[in-house]
């Protein structure tokens, strides 16, 4: 009851400043909704993945080998922190389609007839119980290829075409992000999928003599996983163990983890920018209102209102923004987190992906927004305490009309037209306000640069990798090692422009305490397929001995040129020290390169290769269709998958551009409105002198134009810093985002920034047109 009339005044005050109010509200809503949407999505994703892993008993350790006996399933549990073990057969083969030109690959995984112990399948449709000729197909692949329960599919197994009945469509936790291997950078569900066959039947037709090539392990205690891994690495050589992969390094899980980290980072950084600006804006708006209301505040004090009552009255202005902004922002954010979480389904297959409404997070968002706005508001209204009621009744002493710096340079100042003099003086006298406008423009421009860079970089990275770094049209992999003579066989089938044999093997590379598993590629010394450049951008040749490391590998091992590193082979006991001869710029993937002869000499036998690179005008896939035990990866397929990916990301980048624009638009709009409200008396005098509304508007435009230009100039380094920051944050084992910003991106960003600022300016012209300047001269009511 006590504050009833003051509350009425408050609502009328909000109504009178609705432009600014809506503006600041828009920024708060944006900040809170980005925070809610992104952080909810990351929680949704994280929780769903964890639930999925628990539900499907996702393996802690994946052991890959050549010949793993079934008995280990029984012998291992109970020893060395191992709780459960399950062996299986995994291999890649062709999925036969009607189109002969297509080369579709599937990973065949053996599973128990009824339900496997580890990495259980999550059936989406059909049934789980498998008979001999039954097959379960992974959902993403089935969708991409239009395969349904009841269909028949053909696979090439052990050189023969085999037909299977599709009895189920399933998801699998280990293929939530379905990537072929570490060398592929995007999922391509149309050309790579996973299928599940009954274990005993597969052993029979695949001819493994009862042996498996993988064993999955669930640890008793996560704390001692390292010891278990060490045990497996040290004792399983006899089974031809090639790799022991911990859950955290498992490809799909690793990528999901990186995606979640990226989301978490985004949920922390973007809202902070928006809320900071909203906070400063609220403080500025309120301090201006308090200044304008000086006499009213004096009257309230004279009437007997306490300082606290008056401060609360003004703080309610900020608190209501916080409440509405927090509430709407978190509601919109929660709704959009559903859309965003579902967006991840484009890439990830998580059947238990749940979009939850986190009521406690809505409450937290509202409370945080309320506290934040009230605190910012307090900064703006604290001057109330200093207002002396007796003093406030007297007209405020005019501002010191001191000269600005440029005025001292007489030659310039005397030539400045009158209207520009007003503009310059205003800017210099209201430095804080103009710095704020400049900062908003700078952040807008900086965020635009970052966004256009991100749109650009994906393209640049692919081009750099596939057109400048690795100029390979077809990458052919053989199932195992073979003699170089196989290349002659290939040349008989194809008209070849270029062809080279290559070796590609994973190794554990160590430098002191640092260690990393990466694929080393053995190439001909004068290879035509790779264009190596060092980190300075200079071309380098593959040395006859020693090793070249990709820049991200060198960084994670903390290695420099000239250092010696230890290379541990998984297929033999040979641990070899080699010298780092160079560090090469590589934007996609984490690799090392050696001369093939040197590599074979150190780890294999002379003349052996396990794959080939070739460029040919032929349709290689269809021509090599009859060749057994090879898989072909074509650059075109990669580029097609990439194009699908960029379409999906373009939407989110577009949203970022709009957000960045909103910030600049809203701040310039509201600050200009504030100027108009505060300077009605000044503008009225100018009108009396004969200035037109347009001329007065032009004055405001000039002030903002100067600040926009300064903002843009300052925005460029901010943008470059953001690019550097984002590049570092998003650089993973797969991507190295260290590309410089294209000048065209900067140009586009500047144009976009200017468009948003001009729109804001045009909106304020409406206000200028509506202002009754003459009325301002007539009355003096507080």
């Amino acid at each position, binding site marked *: 009851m006590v504050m009833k009339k003051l509350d009425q005044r408050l609502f009328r005050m909000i109504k009178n400043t609705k432009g600014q109010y809506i503006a600041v509200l828009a920024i708060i809503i944006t900040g809170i909704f980005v925070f809610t949407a992104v952080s909810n999505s990351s929680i949704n994703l994280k929780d769903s993945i964890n639930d999925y892993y628990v539900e499907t008993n996702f393996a802690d350790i994946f052991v890959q080998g050549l010949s793993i006996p079934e008995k280990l399933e029984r012998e291992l549990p109970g020893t060395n922190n191992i709780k459960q073990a399950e062996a299986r057969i995994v291999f890649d083969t062709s999925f036969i389609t009607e189109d002969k030109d297509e080369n579709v690959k599937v990973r065949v995984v053996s599973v128990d007839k009824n339900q496997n112990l580890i990495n259980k399948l999550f059936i989406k449709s059909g049934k789980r119980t498998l008979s001999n000729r039954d097959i379960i197909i992974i959902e993403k692949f089935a969708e991409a290829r239009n395969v349904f329960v009841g269909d028949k599919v053909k696979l090439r197994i052990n050189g023969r075409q085999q037909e299977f009945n599709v009895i189920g469509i399933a998801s699998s936790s280990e293929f939530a992000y379905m990537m072929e291997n570490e060398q592929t950078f995007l999922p391509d569900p149309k050309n790579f999928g996973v299928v599940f066959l009954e274990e005993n039947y597969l052993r029979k037709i695949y001819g493994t003599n009862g042996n498996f090539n993988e064993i999955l392990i669930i640890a008793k205690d996560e704390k001692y996983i390292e010891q278990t891994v060490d045990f497996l690495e040290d004792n399983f050589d006899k089974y031809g163990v090639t790799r022991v992969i911990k859950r955290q390094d498992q490809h799909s899980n690793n990528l999901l983890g990186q995606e979640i980290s990226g989301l978490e980072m985004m949920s922390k950084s973007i809202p902070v920018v928006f809320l900071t600006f909203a906070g400063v804006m609220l403080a500025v708006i309120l301090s201006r209102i308090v200044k304008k209301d000086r006499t009213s505040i004096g*009257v309230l004090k004279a009437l007997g209102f306490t300082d606290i009552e008056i401060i609360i009255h003004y703080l309610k202005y900020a608190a209501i923004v916080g409440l509405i902004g927090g509430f709407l922002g978190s509601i919109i954010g929660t709704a959009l987190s559903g859309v965003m979480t579902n967006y991840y389904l484009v890439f990830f297959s998580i059947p238990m992906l749940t979009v939850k409404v986190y009521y406690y997070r809505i409450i937290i968002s509202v409370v945080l927004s309320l506290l934040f706005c009230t605190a910012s508001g307090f900064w703006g209204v604290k001057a109330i305490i200093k207002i002396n*009621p007796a003093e406030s009744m007297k007209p405020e002493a005019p501002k010191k009309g001191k000269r600005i710096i440029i005025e001292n340079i007489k030659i310039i100042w005397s030539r400045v037209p009158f209207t520009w003099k007003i503009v310059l003086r205003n800017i210099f006298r209201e430095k804080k306000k103009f710095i704020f406008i400049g900062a908003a423009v700078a952040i807008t421009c900086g965020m635009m640069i970052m966004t256009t860079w991100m749109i650009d970089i994906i393209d640049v990275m692919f081009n750099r990798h596939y057109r400048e770094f690795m100029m390979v049209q077809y990458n052919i992999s053989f199932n195992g090692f073979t003699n170089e003579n196989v290349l002659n066989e290939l040349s008989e089938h194809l008209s070849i422009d270029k062809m080279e044999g290559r070796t590609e093997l994973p190794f554990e590379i160590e430098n002191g305490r640092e260690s990393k598993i990466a694929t080393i590629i053995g190439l001909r010394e004068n290879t035509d397929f790779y264009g190596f450049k060092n980190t300075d951008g200079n071309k380098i040749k593959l040395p006859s001995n020693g090793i070249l490391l990709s820049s991200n590998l060198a960084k994670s091992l903390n290695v420099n040129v000239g250092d010696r590193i230890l290379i541990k082979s998984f297929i033999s006991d040979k641990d070899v020290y080699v010298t780092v001869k160079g560090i090469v710029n590589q934007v996609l993937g984490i690799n090392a390169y050696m001369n093939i002869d040197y590599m074979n000499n150190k780890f294999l036998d002379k003349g052996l290769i396990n794959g080939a690179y070739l460029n040919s005008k032929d349709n290689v896939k269809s021509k090599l269709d009859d060749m057994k035990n090879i898989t072909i990866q074509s650059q075109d397929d990669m580029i097609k998958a990439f194009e699908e990916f960029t379409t999906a990301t373009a939407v989110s980048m577009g949203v970022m551009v709009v957000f960045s624009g909103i910030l600049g638009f809203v701040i310039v709009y509201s600050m200009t409105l504030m100027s108009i409200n505060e300077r009605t008396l000044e503008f009225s005098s100018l009108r009396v002198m004969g200035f037109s509304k347009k001329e007065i508007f032009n004055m405001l435009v000039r002030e903002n134009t100067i600040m926009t230009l300064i903002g843009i100039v300052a925005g460029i380094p901010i943008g470059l810093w953001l690019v550097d920051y984002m590049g570092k944050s998003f650089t993973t084992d797969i991507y190295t985002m260290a590309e410089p910003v294209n000048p065209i991106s900067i140009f586009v960003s500047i144009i976009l920034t200017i468009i948003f600022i001009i729109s804001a300016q045009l909106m304020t012209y409406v206000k200028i047109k509506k202002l009754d300047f003459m009325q301002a001269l007539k009355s003096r009511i507080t």
Partner: protein
Amino acid sequence: MSDIILKVEKLKKDYQMGEITVNAVKDASFVVKKGEFVVILGPSGSGKSTLLNIIGGMDKPTDGEVYFNKELITDFTDKDLTFYRRNQIGFVFQFYNLLATLTAKENVELAVEICQNPIDIDEVLEAVGLGYRADHFPAQMSGGEQQRVAIARAVAKNPEILLCDEPTGALDFETGIQILKVLKDINIKYKNTVMVITHNASIAKMADKVIKMRSGNITEIIKNENPIEPERIEW
């Protein structure tokens, strides 16, 4: 002695303006009785507004004492002064100082909401002759009407003293006389003590007591045995 509402003793107020000390009030002493209509008369810069602000608890003196109903208000804390203004004092300013976003009635209600023994708002608005303008905003009213709202706002709180700083200063003669009449009527009807500051010597004729000031000093205190009706004042 019991009917004395205000006692000012050896009051002094200095202002620091840059390097110069301004002695706004040098040595003021006087008493005001309950229900008196007092005019403080003096040219601009004589210190009368400063004096009024100190009496009203809006400012603090450099030296001297002010007793309100035997309470030494010059010893009051800021909080005490706020409650003193809230419950005992009604202010009327030269430029009305109404809150622009509140209607006439709401301006009065605002003041009434925080005090202890308010008078009925409609009654006060009728008393100042503005019942029919209650729902108008200040911008829709003339200066005289706005000043009447300001008086209603001050009176509705039922204060013991009504302090008016040049209440007719911004008004034409006829409107000024109307305002003075309202003040006199209020003085009679509600038995408030009224103190009016003015530089207009004619207004002094309606006062029970006239305190003349010049250059921060009280030069004369005149007791007017025959105050005239406001309508008979001319300037």
